[in-house]
């Protein structure tokens, strides 16, 4: 009976989310066509309830189902990150979706269920659970990318994401089977024990398996050279969905990767640390260099998302608790600044009609829409990592973790890269503030978009000026 209670406690958040998700499905069927945003608002309320009910106090660990599922502070912090991403996206998406004629309850239901998948990914201590969570998230994301079925770009994004995503999942899965065959278990703790015992250390099977698995992971976090899907998908997807997709699934993939490599592969650090160090350098540099050449702001933000994944990978290879704490903090900050930027991008329209993402369209916006320009400026500065904004705090923590792990060269490359990145973020603000308007562009900030960007701006400033509260939030994380 005690066993049963322990199991229940470990899965309680997911059970709660499943029940709420099913209620959302019913609500979606019940609500009238023009009131579908209610589904999204109910989703926010449900997430808030779950977040309040499931907080494991610091140090609380609920490991259930024969060590397959873990609910601890780490899972909780990442759940809060996903919940915030959902909240901001939902608030910011209503007007955009209504405008495009795709304000459907499914948008929110699917996003909600994707969070359920992410929770399973993060709390998994077993590859089976991890895989099911990953696919729940991924399938939901394919639908979100292709959500605007009237538009060709969105359909293309959905199909591309689907093919590449399924391909990388199959690769990950094939690697898992070899790891399973060589170690005889799918459990992280037991894999770690088997690897530690040295019985399979030089085994070719386990090496091939791990390399295939890590390649699959690299696809999911869009690390160069496995990034080719990311720009197209982020550009084609509906703008609010793109904002969500650059933030939450990436945070989930990182969290799951952290759990896997820090627990299961801890004895095999010699294998993956050099691999991910190289990938981190490639990802940062490539993302930034290609972003420099972009003239479409949405595509530029897509490449910037790739380079941000590179910064986060520095925290991964640092191999110390500061590293993954920094990743958690970075993901949290990234939620505010990136979803804010995407929301503002989504309301920019040419002649008040067509969605416009060209860089030239930003020219002279500061005179027409001073508030809009100011918000965009703050998000761009924060993404560039200019002190004292939130983005700087995130990068600083990541680089500190690298310093502590004696990987100064990696921190230096990261810092150089963020200096490089300043150029293309600044270019947007320069266009807004110093260029004369070229096109008849309008940015009507509606109520919901205003709330989202306002929350984003406030949080970016708040984290920047009072970082201690947020650093405390992640300070006790332990994998």
């Amino acid at each position: 009976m005690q066993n049963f209670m322990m199991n229940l406690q470990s899965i309680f958040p997911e059970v709660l989310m499943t029940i709420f998700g099913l209620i959302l499905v019913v609500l979606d069927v019940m609500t009238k066509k023009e009131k579908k945003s209610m589904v999204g608002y109910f989703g926010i309320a449900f997430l808030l309830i779950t977040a309040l009910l499931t907080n494991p106090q610091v140090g609380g660990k609920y490991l259930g189902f024969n060590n397959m599922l873990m609910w601890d502070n780490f899972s909780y912090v990442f759940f809060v990150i996903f919940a915030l991403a959902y909240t901001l996206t939902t608030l910011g998406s209503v007007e955009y979706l209504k405008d495009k004629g795709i304000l459907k309850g499914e948008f929110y239901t699917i996003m909600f269920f994707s969070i359920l998948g992410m929770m399973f990914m993060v709390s998994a201590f077993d590859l089976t659970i991890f895989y099911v969570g990953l696919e729940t998230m991924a399938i939901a994301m394919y639908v979100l990318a292709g959500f605007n079925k009237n538009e060709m770009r969105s359909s293309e994004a959905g199909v591309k994401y689907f093919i590449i995503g399924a391909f990388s999942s199959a690769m990950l899965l094939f690697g898992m089977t070899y790891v399973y065959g060589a170690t005889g278990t799918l459990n992280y703790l037991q894999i770690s024990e088997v690897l530690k015992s040295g019985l399979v250390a030089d085994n070719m099977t386990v090496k091939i398996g791990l390399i295939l698995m890590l390649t699959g992971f690299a696809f999911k976090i869009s690390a160069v050279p496995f990034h080719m899907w990311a720009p197209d998908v982020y550009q084609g997807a509906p703008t609010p969905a793109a904002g969500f997709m650059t933030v939450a699934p990436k945070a989930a993939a990182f969290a799951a990767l952290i759990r896997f490599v820090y627990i299961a592969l801890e004895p095999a650090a010699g294998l993956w640390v050099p691999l991910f160090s190289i990938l981190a350098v490639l990802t940062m540099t490539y993302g930034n260099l290609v972003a420099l050449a972009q003239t479409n702001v949405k595509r530029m933000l897509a490449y910037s998302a790739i380079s941000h994944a590179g910064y986060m990978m520095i925290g991964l290879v640092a191999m110390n608790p500061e590293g993954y704490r920094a990743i958690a903090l970075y993901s949290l900050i990234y939620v505010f600044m990136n979803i804010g930027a995407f929301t503002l991008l989504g309301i920019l329209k040419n002649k008040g009609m067509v969605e416009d993402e060209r860089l030239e369209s930003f020219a002279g916006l500061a005179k027409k829409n001073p508030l809009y320009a100011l918000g965009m400026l703050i998000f761009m500065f924060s993404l560039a990592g200019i002190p004292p904004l939130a983005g700087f705090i995130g990068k600083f923590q990541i680089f500190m973790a690298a310093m502590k792990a004696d990987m100064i060269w990696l921190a230096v490359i990261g810092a150089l890269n963020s200096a490089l990145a300043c150029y293309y973020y600044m270019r947007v603000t320069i266009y807004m503030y110093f260029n004369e308007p070229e096109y008849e562009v309008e940015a009507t900030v509606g109520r919901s978009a205003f709330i989202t960007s306002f929350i984003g701006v406030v949080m970016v400033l708040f984290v920047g000026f009072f970082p201690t509260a947020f650093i405390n939030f992640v300070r006790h994380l332990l994998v």
Partner: protein
Amino acid sequence: MLTLAHYLVLSAIIFSIGVAGVLIRRNLIVMFMSLELMLNAVNINLAAFSSYLQQMTGQIFIVFVMAVAAAEAAVGLALFISLFRNKQTINADEINTMRG
């Protein structure tokens, strides 16, 4: 006698055919069939290891892989249909609206 190695070679061959199919073929439906081939190679591997290790874990994993593959198939076909309605083609080479 059939040993573990036979099954592993078989699944590796099937997986490679699947990978080659995804990379070479340009019809989205055929690419998707190749993806299913990759997943089936995974299932063969799991079954072989599960039988070799005398464990149930691998076989249970197969059930999940199958269920997920079905969900993936449904979503994938829906996406293909919506692409076809917009573009009148399902050739992967013609999905090139976005560049850069």
